């Protein structure tokens, strides 16, 4: 697929990258039809986010069309969807209270290391460490 990738401060390029695959049962692959540029994208563009590496794909607020779903996904092929900047698991305590930005599970466990020394307990919302 084609994707906007980061190569350095103020250096982003549209490259051909490997197509994504369904990895987890609730995954879906979305063909993007339009996208927004978020303020966070500008932080990445300006090179102030540690952990960013050359080739990383940018963009996290977009709309598009579902092209493939995992066996446990609630989406259907060809559905049109909007993706917000927060992602949440839908199953943790906070998701149940509609406090989606506090989701426990949406970021990988190995990316929750930094928040433990900072906040006293690990949490999902901070993922500055790339391992």
């Amino acid at each position, binding site marked *: 697929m084609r994707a906007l990738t980061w190569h350095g401060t103020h250096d982003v390029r549209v490259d051909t990258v490997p197509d994504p695959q369904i*990895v987890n*049962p609730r995954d879906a692959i979305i063909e993007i039809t339009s996208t927004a540029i978020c303020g966070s994208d500008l932080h990445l563009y300006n090179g102030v986010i540690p952990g960013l590496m050359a080739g990383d794909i940018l963009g996290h607020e977009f709309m598009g069309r579902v092209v493939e779903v995992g066996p*446990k996904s609630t989406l259907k092929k060809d559905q049109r969807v909007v993706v917000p900047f927060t992602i949440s698991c839908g199953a943790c305590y906070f998701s149940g209270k509609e406090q989606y930005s506090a989701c426990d599970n949406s*970021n*990988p*466990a*190995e990316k*929750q290391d930094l928040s433990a020394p900072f906040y006293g307990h690990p949490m999902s919302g901070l993922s500055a460490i790339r391992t």
Partner: protein
Amino acid sequence: MSGMTGDPRGEPPRRPARDGFPRQDGAGSRGDDGTPAASLAVALGAGAALVAASLVTRRRTRQRERALRHTDSAPERARRAPSGSATLTANAVTINRPRDELFAFWRAFENLPAFMENVLAARPLGQDRWEWRIGAPAGRSVRLETVVTDERPGERIAWRSLPGSDVEAEGDVTFRDAPAGRGAVVEATVAYHPPADELGRLIATLFQREPQIQGRRELRRFKMLMETGEIATSANRRPEAQEG
């Protein structure tokens, strides 16, 4: 002074040190008259302030120690627990699922490699003995044979290694109801003694690769798996996901 030392109720100090410091104001008044009596008062005042400060410091230390003995932070308790020469780590996680369901999944030990990165394989040997293969650096692995030493359904599983294992270890995992219907708190403790040979040093290196962080990640992955049925990954292709 008496206000500082005569408080046997053990309440948090109400800034007594600050109350003590104004006595040093005597230093200011010394310039006013400069008499020997005033100097003596200054000396007494300074001494009193020092004694007060040391008493307050000691009391605060005791309070901190008391608080830590009763902390609900498993890693903190493990750090402070007397463990002899063994290395002890503990972690806890709150999972939004019923305690019995979590216990049952964990008790089926063949499930553990699904969320424990270092556990490559688990094989039953009969009579509740299990053989484990644990990944080590440079493509090597270590072997562990364990037996369950205590089991309370829905509450606790304790285990220890058997002679012939590459590493001497024991541990337990406990399950208790979380407050306010938030599911269950799962706490895992592991103590281990690597042997004193070359393989032992390898094992030590392996485990000291941030054992506390490793243990916490494993519990977080257990939580993800039990709450959502999957373990979050930033890999967007299957081969990368398998590499971890």
